[in-house]
């Protein structure tokens, strides 16, 4: 019975509205009090029914809800024969709830779009070799699945048979299709543009990258900042307090009308909905633009950021360094390049890769006794010779003499912003290479936008030499630049700024800079949709697109502003209503309820504005 009534709320609103109109028309046009009273009376009863049921159910679980306050108010109105008021109040309350539902759904739509992209079914291979359609929840790790052209990949997996092109936009934001063949990895939620693939499932359901992104967004929507947790606690005690206050007012004034009006006006509806609405809209906007904000606390912190610290290689630069210059110090250059190539071939360092690429085909020698010196380079035995490859610090450590010519070259190349790699064989300096890593296109403009948004400090920290770092800082207009930094040094630097009271954001590589990412209040990993970036970042830039950073910052500031606006509206309206009811005559329940519901809608609509936020260039 209860379920039935609750299910018919929309119809009740409609019938109630009609009855109220009949009531007014009767009373005002036909002066027929009897019909009017019956109309209002019936409207009140059918309107109050669902509200009373909700109030009762809340009481059963020990919650004093707004429904209870409204129910008591309506009963009070009935008792003092104010049927018109009780009808209007119940109507407004139900209608308001209906409007709230519609607008809230719209606000949540951005995120709904994301979850709707999740695949529901998959073609699984059975024992007899045939592919049968099953629900995606029934796929286990190790199952073999068939993906046809145009279909969504159902799970994270590896290609066993076939090839094709996949649109990975839902994970990386890149709309250029990626080619896949045997042994390629594929992600759940991506679309197979053309081709046919048989894949083996590696991760299913919530463990897929897509599943993790959805979970991340859902948790972010409801993550509460300090302010929100406070509001929640406040609302829990405030609602019963209104009940008590109304009761006390009734005791002292015996004015039932006044007391029940207070009951209606005191409801904190707008306050409780106001902040979460801004949160959802902000996060929804972010998700649509390739930025995942991991929650309300992050949004608030980032909006107040004082300093943004960037890692250089791979963040500000493309991360694909190339040898720009090569100087020889001995004649007849013999096997040096081959030894160098052999040693650098063993390393994954970007500088090593650049050198190997530059040298091209060379005779490879076996490398023995390799010693990696942190912050310096590599020392190894090649073909019976002692080869040292690294920076100036390494040369000094190995006691390799650097003549005037060499020192001049070093200074010149550093000034030009090169990373230097010196190679010495058997204690003699053989070559000096200058390696340059190009700055990502568009970074300069993006940094300018960040400055315009009010970030005071833009700092670059790098393991590279000071000359390179200074050049980058000059070119990009950064406030500070520090080179020769090991990962621990970067973390210490961040701590120093934080001790000064600054809010710090760190943008870097998800893998090497984990201590810094964890320490900074806002960690931003440029790993795109990879697991590491998702796990460690507070703000995830979906396809490592640096240009999303200004939008992310602008969005956070706009969202924080929006939340404040909503809080002000909510509190302001309640205070205004309460003062009106005490100090004026014309404030009654109906008007009070109208304004109350109105304020809730205003707050939701204000939140919805955020969905359309765009950074103005």
């Amino acid at each position, binding site marked *: 019975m209860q379920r039935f009534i609750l299910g018919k709320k929309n119809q009740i609103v409609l019938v109630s509205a009609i009855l109220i109109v009949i009531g007014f028309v009767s009373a005002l046009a036909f002066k027929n009090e009897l019909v009017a009273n019956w109309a209002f009376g019936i409207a009140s009863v059918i309107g109050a029914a669902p509200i009373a049921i909700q109030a009762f159910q*809340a009481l059963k*679980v020990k919650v004093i809800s707004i429904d209870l306050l409204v129910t008591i108010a309506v009963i009070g109105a009935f008792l003092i024969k104010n049927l018109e008021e009780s009808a209007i109040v119940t109507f407004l309350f139900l209608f308001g709830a209906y409007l709230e*539902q519609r607008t809230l759904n719209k606000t949540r739509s951005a*995120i709904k779009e994301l979850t709707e992209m999740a695949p529901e079914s998959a073609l699984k291979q059975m024992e007899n070799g045939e592919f049968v359609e099953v629900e995606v929840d029934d796929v286990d790790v190790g199952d073999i699945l068939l993906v046809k052209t145009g279909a969504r990949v159902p799970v994270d997996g590896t290609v066993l048979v076939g090839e094709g092109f996949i649109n990975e936009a839902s994970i990386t934001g890149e709309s250029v299709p990626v080619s896949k063949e045997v042994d390629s990895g594929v992600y759940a939620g991506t679309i197979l543009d053309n081709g046919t693939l048989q894949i083996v499932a590696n991760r299913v359901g919530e463990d897929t990258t897509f599943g993790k992104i959805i979970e991340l967004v859902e948790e972010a929507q409801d993550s509460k900042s300090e302010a929100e947790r406070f509001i929640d606690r406040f609302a829990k005690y405030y609602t019963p307090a209104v009940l008590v206050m109304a009761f006390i007012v009734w005791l002292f004034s015996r004015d039932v009308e006044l007391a029940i009006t207070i009951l209606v006006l005191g409801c904190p509806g707008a306050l409780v909905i106001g902040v979460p609405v801004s949160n*959802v809209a902000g996060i929804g906007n972010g998700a649509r633009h390739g930025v995942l904000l991991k929650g309300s606390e992050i949004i608030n912190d980032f909006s107040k950021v004082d300093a943004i610290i960037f890692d250089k290689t791979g963040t500000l630069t493309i991360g694909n360094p190339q040898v720009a210059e090569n100087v020889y110090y001995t004649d007849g250059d013999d096997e040096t390049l081959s030894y160098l190539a052999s040693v650098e071939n063993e390393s994954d360092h970007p500088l090593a890769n650049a050198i190997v690429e530059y040298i091209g085909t060379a005779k490879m020698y076996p490398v023995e006794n390799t010693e990696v010196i942190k912050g310096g380079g590599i020392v190894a035995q090649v073909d019976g010779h002692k080869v040292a490859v690294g920076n100036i610090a390494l040369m000094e450590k190995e006691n390799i003499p650097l003549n005037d010519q060499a020192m001049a070259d070093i200074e010149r190349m550093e000034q030009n912003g090169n990373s230097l790699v010196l190679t010495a064989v058997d204690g003699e300096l053989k070559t000096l290479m200058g390696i340059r890593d190009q700055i990502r296109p568009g970074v300069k403009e993006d940094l300018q936008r960040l400055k315009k948004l009010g970030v005071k400090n833009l700092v670059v920290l790098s393991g590279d030499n000071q000359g390179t770092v200074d050049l980058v800082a000059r070119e990009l207009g950064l406030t500070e630049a520090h080179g020769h930094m090991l990962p621990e040094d970067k973390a210490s630097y961040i701590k120093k700024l934080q001790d000064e009271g600054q809010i710090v954001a760190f943008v870097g590589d998800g893998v090497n800079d984990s201590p810094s990412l964890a320490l900074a209040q806002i960690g931003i990993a440029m790993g795109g949709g990879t697991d590491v970036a998702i796990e460690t970042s507070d703000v995830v830039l979906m396809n490592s697109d640096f240009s999303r950073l200004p939008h992310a910052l602008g969005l956070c500031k706009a969202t924080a502003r929006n939340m404040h606006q909503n809080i002000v509206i909510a509190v302001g309206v309640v205070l205004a209503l309460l003062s009106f009811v005490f100090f004026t005559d014309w404030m009654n329940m109906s008007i009070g309820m109208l304004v109350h519901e109105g304020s809730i809608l205003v707050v939701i609509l204000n939140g919805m504005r955020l969905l359309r936020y765009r950074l103005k260039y």
Partner: protein
Amino acid sequence: MQKATIQTEPLTCPSCVQKIENATKSLDGVDKESVKVLFNSSKVKFDFDPAKVSLEDVVKAITALGYEVVKSQAKD
């Protein structure tokens, strides 16, 4: 201990979260600390001891409050 996720019809009223939270926590066998009601995605997440309470029991409690349950699942 199993992990459960219950999807309800879209939640819109401010007190919904409190009601569902209290109702879920009041069932013996549900780990009170783990109960999370996600207002915006309309989901209820919690851990429970299948020996003391079943997923159905929780679904019934939430439905009794007046909220339709769209989907429910539990896993170890």
